[in-house]
């Protein structure tokens, strides 16, 4: 069978596996949605970040970024660690499957899951929190760019990170706190320019901060850029940092990826 057919079957197997695991679906897709509705309702529309733009819009844009990170980084870092522990990776490695087909399967799964998650979040944002869709082709294009660069960077990091926990059980406890902390210091729950400078610096190392910033360009009125640290959207910088993370993540993957459990040598 052709390489493409094998990849197609891997994607199908990954998607079936994902959608049949209720915990995975709840954790990856429903949890960000619940956070969106919950915090969106608590924040309300009184507080404005600039005249005419309530904080809740800032928050919704940030949550879109957080959901992208959840469907890619968190999802992969946890499931690959668990699958390695269960012996799936070792089993696959013992077949004639081209190694890359495994990663294509994972990337395909992340694409579908993230698009589903993103659509739900967008629908929710528009319906309940007056989120305005990107106003023109350029804003849509930036949205697409953030999606592609962000999801790619987070996918690489997720695959690489899956080799760090010592076994599958330890994975959620290691991955989830990192994701939650990043959301606090990357401009999801709080306005990024309002948090202490040293925390800003930490947040700025990681992709999520730049994904959220790009998404704010796509979804907020142009006037909101006065609340950015430099008073500008810095789209070129956003693209640069995310691209660097793609390269770093890829090298990290190539150097650290293991097909076997650590206790298996």
């Amino acid at each position, binding site marked *: *069978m052709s390489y493409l057919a094998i990849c197609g079957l891997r994607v199908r*197997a990954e998607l079936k596996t994902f959608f049949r695991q209720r915990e995975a679906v709840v954790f990856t897709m429903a949890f960000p949605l619940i956070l969106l509705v919950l915090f969106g309702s608590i924040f309300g529309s009184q507080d404005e970040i600039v005249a005419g733009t309530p904080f809740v819009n800032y928050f919704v844009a940030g949550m879109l970024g957080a959901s992208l990170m959840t469907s890619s980084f968190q999802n992969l870092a946890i499931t690959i660690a668990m*699958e390695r522990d269960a012996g*799936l990776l070792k089993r696959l490695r*013992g077949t004639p*499957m081209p190694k890359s087909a495994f990663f294509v399967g994972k990337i395909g799964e992340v694409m579908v899951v993230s698009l589903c998650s993103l659509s739900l979040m967008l629908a929710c944002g528009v319906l309940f929190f007056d989120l305005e869709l990107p106003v023109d082709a350029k804003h849509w294009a930036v949205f697409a760019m953030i999606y592609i660069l962000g999801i790619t960077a987070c996918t690489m990091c997720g695959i690489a990170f899956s080799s760090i926990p010592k076994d599958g059980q330890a994975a959620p406890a290691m991955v989830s706190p990192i994701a939650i902390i990043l959301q606090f210091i990357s401009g999801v729950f709080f306005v990024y320019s309002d948090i202490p400078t040293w925390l800003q610096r930490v947040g700025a190392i990681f992709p999520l901060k730049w994904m959220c910033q790009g998404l704010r360009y796509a979804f907020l009125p142009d006037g909101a850029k006065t609340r950015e640290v430099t008073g500008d959207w810095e789209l070129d910088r956003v693209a640069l940092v995310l691209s660097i993370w793609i390269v770093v993540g890829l090298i990290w993957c190539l150097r650290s990826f293991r097909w076997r459990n650590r206790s298996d040598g």
Partner: protein
Amino acid sequence: MYTQSATIDVVTAVEIVGLTKTYRRKSAGKLTTTTAVDGLELRIELGEIFALLGPNGAGKSTTIEILEGYRNRDSGEVTVLGVDPQQGDAAWRSRIGIVLQSTKDLTELTVVESLNTFAALYPRSRPIDEVLELVGLSEHADQRGNQLSGGLRRRLDVGLGILGRPELLFLDEPTTGFDPEARRHFWSMIEGLRTEGTTILLTTHYLDEAEALADRVGVINHGKLIALDTPLGLGGRGKALATVSYRNASGQIVEIETATPTQVVRDLAAANAGELPELKITRPSLEDTYLEMIGRESE
């Protein structure tokens, strides 16, 4: 000394010469080295069913994983179907089948879905229905992995191993968790693979299984092969003294060790008019021989 030539590659399934593997582990800041395989020599012919026996930690798993291409060796020469496993490519992998020990994966896919996903990877895979039939999973085809009992899950592992019509099949403790009926069924399936000409390398803790299936058994301990023979010939047990035993008139068990049990029985029959209660002739079982061998080694 061999020079590696095409003829040797074709007639030998597995060829191991002077294989060594040492693990270095850092524990509590101290570097400890353990020699798992220590100058192992072994040759398995095409079409043969070979059982590798040995206690846990004897170097069995390490050896098998080197043959399967999962681990690199420190030194020695190894060929599997004429190819060095460290250089094994997809074409080579499509000629071998691997049944790993204790797996917990494929929980969400049904049996058929798993088989279909893996069948696509092999150039001349068996029809799915045939595999289901062979491993006895036809009635469980639409059950998900996590709905299968331990024994049925193991059958799925075996099914995935034979899916690609391997020339050489690795079976690492394949019948763990099987009930006696399932084991018999499994044994007859292995006989079927034998008639197809599949070479099988089996490890098992069930010595009756090795005895029933294997053409030859090898016993490995401390990383070395300490015995290599047919199941009957192992440790000279085919030639060992037989024990004739029965219960005598005063109710005691009498045991006679002899090289000529037939003659002993004939004499007993002549000397006693009726049936001798509990009369039996026993020879050391494979298990007795094996345990004695392993026990002697560790002294």
